[in-house]
C-alpha cells in the first residue's frame, strides 16, 4: 500500500467527455486540466485557495481546483470555462462580462465567470452586497469588481425577465 511510486486510477467526466488515466496522487485537478489536458482556460494564481482564479464546477458546485487532488473525486462531473460554450456560442454570463466591461487583464476572468455561474444557481443574488459577499473568494487585482457585479446583475435581470415572460 505504501509504494510511493504507485499511480492511482483517475476517471472523470470533464466538459462532457470521459477522461481516464493513472495519475500520481499529488496531481491537483488544476494541474491535470492545464498540464495534461491542455484546458488552459482555468488559471493558476496563488495555487493556495486564496485567489479563485482556478475555480471550476465539480458536480455542479464551485470549487478551487488547486486544492483538490484529481484522484480524490472519482467519476465526478467537472465543468471548466471551456465547457460553458460548447458550440462556440457564449454563455450569457460570458456575454455579460464583455458588455459590462468586467475585466481588464482577464487573468481572474475564467474563475470569476465560473464562480458567477454557480452563484446564480445558489441564488445569492438579491442585492449588490450579497453578490459581493458571495463572490469574495475571487480576487481581481485589476479591481474590476464594480463591472463584475454589474455583469452578474445584468444576467439576474435577464433571467427574471425571461421568467416573467414565461409566466405571462
Amino acid at each position, binding site marked *: *500500500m*505504501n*509504494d*510511493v*511510486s*504507485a499511480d*492511482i486510477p483517475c476517471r472523470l467526466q470533464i466538459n462532457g467527455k470521459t477522461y481516464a488515466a493513472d495519475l*500520481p*496522487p*499529488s496531481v*491537483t485537478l488544476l494541474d491535470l486540466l492545464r498540464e495534461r489536458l491542455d484546458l488552459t482556460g482555468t488559471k493558476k494564481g496563488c*495555487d*493556495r*485557495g486564496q485567489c*479563485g482564479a482556478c*475555480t471550476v464546477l465539480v458536480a455542479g*458546485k*464551485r*470549487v*478551487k481546483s488547486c*486544492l*483538490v*487532488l484529481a*484522484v*480524490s473525486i472519482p467519476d465526478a462531473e467537472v465543468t471548466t470555462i471551456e465547457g460553458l460554450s460548447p458550440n462556440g456560442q457564449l454563455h450569457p454570463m460570458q456575454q455579460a462580462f464583455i458588455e459590462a466591461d468586467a475585466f481588464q487583464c482577464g487573468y481572474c476572468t475564467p474563475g470569476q465567470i465560473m*464562480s458567477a455561474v*454557480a*452563484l446564480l444557481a*445558489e441564488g*445569492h443574488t438579491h*442585492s449588490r*452586497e*450579497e453578490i*459581493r*459577499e*458571495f463572490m*469574495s*473568494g*475571487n480576487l481581481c487585482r485589476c479591481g474590476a469588481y464594480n463591472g463584475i457585479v454589474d455583469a452578474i446583475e445584468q444576467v439576474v435581470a435577464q433571467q427574471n425577465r425571461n421568467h416573467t415572460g414565461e409566466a405571462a
Partner: protein
Amino acid sequence: MRRFSYSRPATLDEACHSAEHTRFLAGGTNLIDLMKSDVERPAHVADLKALGMHHIDEQPDGGLRLGALATNADTAAHPLVADRYPLLASAILAGASPQIRNVATNGGNLNQRTRCHYFYDPDMPCNKRSPGTGCSARGGRNRIMAILGTSDACIATFPSDMCVALAALKATVNLTGPEGERSVPIRDYHRLPGETPWRDNILRPGEIVTSIDLPPASFGPHHTYLKIRDRLSFAFAIVSAAIGLQIEDGIIRHGRIALGGVGTKPWCVPAAEALLEGKPPSHSLFRDVAERLLQGAMPDRDNAAKLRLAPRVIERALWQASAGTPQSQTDKTIR
C-alpha cells in the same frame, strides 16, 4: 508537493489502523495547502471520503448530529441548522469563501492548523511545526497572534470560525479510534500550547472524528456571530465573538460566549458566563463580562490592539444578542 501514497479506506476500522506517518484527507483545503508549503510531509494519505459520515440527523433528545464529512456549505444551508442553530450557520458563512466551504468538511474544520505566518514558513523556527526550534512569533511580527492561553513555546491562534460557534453551543465531538469510541466536549477538544504546541487537540494517533453533536437549541433569536477582520470578507478573524442568550421577561437566564482570534483555542470562561445569569442586559454588566473574559490577557509586540478591540466586540455582540438582532454576514454594517 513531495510524493506520497494514497488510499481510500472502505471502513472506519481500516482507516483507524492506517500506517504511521499517515494523514487523513477530508476536503483537503488545509492539508493540501500545507503539503504544498512543505509544512505537512505525510508518507501516506488516507482519503476518508468513502466512509459516509456526511449526514445531518435529528437526535432523539431534540439535538442534531453533524457528520464529520458533511461540507461546511451543506451544514450551513441545512434547514435544521439554519432554523435552529443560526449562530452556527452564521459563523460558518463568516469563514473562508463559497468555493472553500463547498469542499471543507466539519471534521477538517475542527482539525485545521493555525495560520501563524511562521508556522507556514519551513525556513523559520517554529515549535508547533518543528518541536524545539523556538517560536519566531514571540517578539516577531505577531499582530494576528493570540493574547490568551499562550505559552513561552507558542502564541498562535486557532483560526476556525465554526469552532467558536460550536464552543458557544457546547457541542460534543464523537471520535472512533484503534482503542474504540469516545465523546469529548468541544471546549475540551482543542489544547492550550503549553510545552507541547505541536499537539493542537486531544486526537490520538489513528483517531477519526465521526460526528459533532449539538444539544437542543435554546437561544431563539438571541444570538450573534460578530467577526472583525482586516477586510470585509474572506479573511481570518482578528477578534470574533459567538454569543447565545436565553432571555425570559427581560432577564438573562443563561448565556454562552466563545471568542475567536484572541485565544490559542476557542476562548470560553464559565465564570464570565455565570455573571450573566438572572440579570437584565446593561452596560455595566456587559463591561464586567468582557473584563472577566479577557482576564489574564498578555499581548506581545504587535497585538496589543486586540486588548482594546476585544471588549468592544464582546459588548457589541452582547447587545446584538440581547436585542435579538444578530450580525448579518451579508450586509457588514455593525449595528
